């Protein structure tokens, strides 16, 4: 660790991982309720489980991005963080608000929660992923603004690199597009249209900039490749992201009340959306091939390459599968969307956080060349468990989506939703099994933190 203020990243990483465990736990509970409707009912109805599951994901990714930023910004700018104290205060505020919100979901009926949290003053609740009570939403704004302020002030007094510029662009975009969460028109269609400005332009535009910046940083560190070279790749990737991702929002406007031209624009732009992810794979593998150093932390590079591959599969391939308008006519609102959602969030965003944590945590714990061989081996096992688990559950959800389409939407002998769901029960069972594998993988990952360092061995495969 070069700068002592990088240490503020540590609580962010640890809390993000704890939230991830909670997120997967609630995913598993949902998977069970899918099969046995009486499970946990009426104690925790499905909508509450789902809200906890998705909101934990969003919050853990924000914690992960913040941790990653606080770690990399001092090294990139070659100066201490502007205010480590502010970063720590923000951590506790955000953690407390996050926990309070989840407890609110679990212990207060949602309709009552809307009343208790002044939703009637400015109704923003009850929309997918943006279910947070007004005070939480305002809290998020506050936390994000103080975070961006901290980053920008640090960059102003230090070195400016392409990575810091791209990162800041992504963060400012994240903040700006979140503001649409406060705009809830009475017209459902108008409401949905602008809802996507937050949801899509987060995950398929601004967050991709953050992802690209973090990936580029880790690749510089573990491959030692010349920064000029890395910068060119980063620009190329985010150029493709912007060209495809912004107009790619159109793939959400096919069948929700927006005009017909989106059928063309959305299809064409989002057909290009896999490209930046494909470039990411080329980027990671080319940099690995051209590496100038043999870093002891091999597993960090494995995660980096894994991020590129899984992001391409989840966001690129699984996105493309149902993104063309004539196909989307049949897939819209089925489990295929859930399949894509799961693999892309995992592949792109959860994986980049694993990448950063696996690179930075050993350094923050005084092991500059990574954890011991034994710990890295265990981590590699967790890498495969989680990846195979996510791939398996994605395939299961895709199969479920296809059965849904055949049951409800194609041919003349159609059956209803509930009946179709019963015919999919076996597939949902398989999904739950793979979910369990992901959960076991995460605990294996946790276990790798507690492997004792052997005396005399510094670290890494080549140590």
């Amino acid at each position, binding site marked *: 660790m070069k700068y002592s203020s990088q240490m503020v990243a540590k609580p962010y990483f640890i809390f993000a991982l704890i939230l991830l465990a909670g997120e997967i736990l609630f995913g598993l509970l949902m998977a069970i*309720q899918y099969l046995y*409707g*009486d499970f946990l*009912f*009426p104690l925790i*109805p*499905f*909508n*509450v489980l*789902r*809200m906890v599951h998705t909101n934990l994901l969003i919050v853990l990714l924000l914690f992960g991005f913040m941790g990653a930023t606080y770690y990399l910004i001092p090294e990139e700018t070659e100066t201490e963080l502007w205010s480590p104290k502010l970063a720590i205060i923000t951590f506790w505020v955000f953690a407390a608000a996050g926990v309070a919100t989840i407890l609110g979901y679990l212990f207060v009926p*949602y*309709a009552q929660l*809307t009343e208790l949290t002044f*939703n009637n003053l400015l*109704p923003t*609740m*009850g*929309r*997918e992923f943006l*279910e947070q009570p007004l005070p939480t939403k305002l809290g998020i704004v506050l936390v994000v603004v103080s975070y961006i302020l901290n980053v920008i002030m640090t960059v102003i007094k230090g070195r400016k690199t392409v990575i810091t510029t791209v990162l800041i662009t992504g963060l400012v975009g994240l903040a700006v597009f979140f503001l649409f969460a406060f705009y*809830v028109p*009475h*017209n*459902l*269609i*108008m409401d*949905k*249209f602008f809802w996507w400005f937050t949801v899509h332009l987060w995950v398929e535009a601004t967050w991709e900039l953050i992802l690209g910046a973090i990936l580029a940083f880790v690749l510089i560190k573990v491959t030692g490749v010349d920064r*000029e070279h890395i910068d*060119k*790749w980063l*620009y*190329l990737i985010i*150029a493709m992201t*912007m*060209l495809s991702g912004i*107009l790619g929002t159109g793939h959400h406007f096919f*069948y*929700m*009340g927006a*005009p*017909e*031209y*989106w059928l063309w*624009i959305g299809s064409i732009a989002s057909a290009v959306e896999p490209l930046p992810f494909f470039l990411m794979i080329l980027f990671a593998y*080319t940099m690995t091939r051209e590496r100038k150093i043999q870093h002891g932390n091999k597993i960090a590079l494995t995660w980096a390459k894994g991020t590129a591959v899984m992001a391409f599969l989840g966001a690129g391939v699984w996105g493309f599968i149902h993104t063309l308008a004539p196909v989307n*006519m049949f897939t*819209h*609102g089925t*489990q295929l969307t*859930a399949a894509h959602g799961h693999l892309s969030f995992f592949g792109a965003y959860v994986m980049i956080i694993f990448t950063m944590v696996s690179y930075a945590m050993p350094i923050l714990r005084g092991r500059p060349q990574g954890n011991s061989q034994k710990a890295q081996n265990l981590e590699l096992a967790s890498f495969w468990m989680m990846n195979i688990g996510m791939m398996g559950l994605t395939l299961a959800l895709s199969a479920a989506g296809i059965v849904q389409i055949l049951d*409800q*939407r194609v041919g003349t002998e*159609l*059956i*209803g*939703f*509930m009946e179709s*769901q019963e015919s999919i029960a076996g597939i949902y069972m398989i999904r739950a099994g793979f979910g369990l594998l992901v959960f076991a993988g995460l605990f294996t990952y946790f276990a790798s933190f507690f492997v004792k360092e052997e005396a005399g061995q510094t670290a890494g495969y080549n140590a």
Partner: protein
Amino acid sequence: MTERITKSMAKNIYYGGGTFALLIFLALTFDTVKQIPHRSNEVNMTASVVAGKKLWEDNNCVGCHTIVGEGAYYAPELMNVFQRRGASDEGAFKSYMQGWMAAQPLDTPNRRKMPQFNLSKEEVDNLSDFLIWTSKVNANDWPPTIEG
């Protein structure tokens, strides 16, 4: 292929391409905002429809159902529930909704459960009006079948 591209070229594609995409997106957004009131029959959006939407949100209905294809996949699509359960007859649909909402949760063992929301008769009517209004939105011929 990337050898022939220099860093400054890549940078220009990023700024130029990004700005270009953003401008087109902005222009189309303006046009869409102009068209949505007509496509969604905003003139028929009565106070009851607006109240129904608020109830839809306050009870987090989208946490289980999809509406116009968006939401959770635990329970049926509701954009065309008016046609499916009410045969496009407002009176029939409203009385169906009163019975259905009152009967929740159904006591079929291990069937997925819908909670009892304890809505008043008027609130259930608001919800019905909201769903009837939604069913008439021009969503480019989606959903493909009545089973949604």
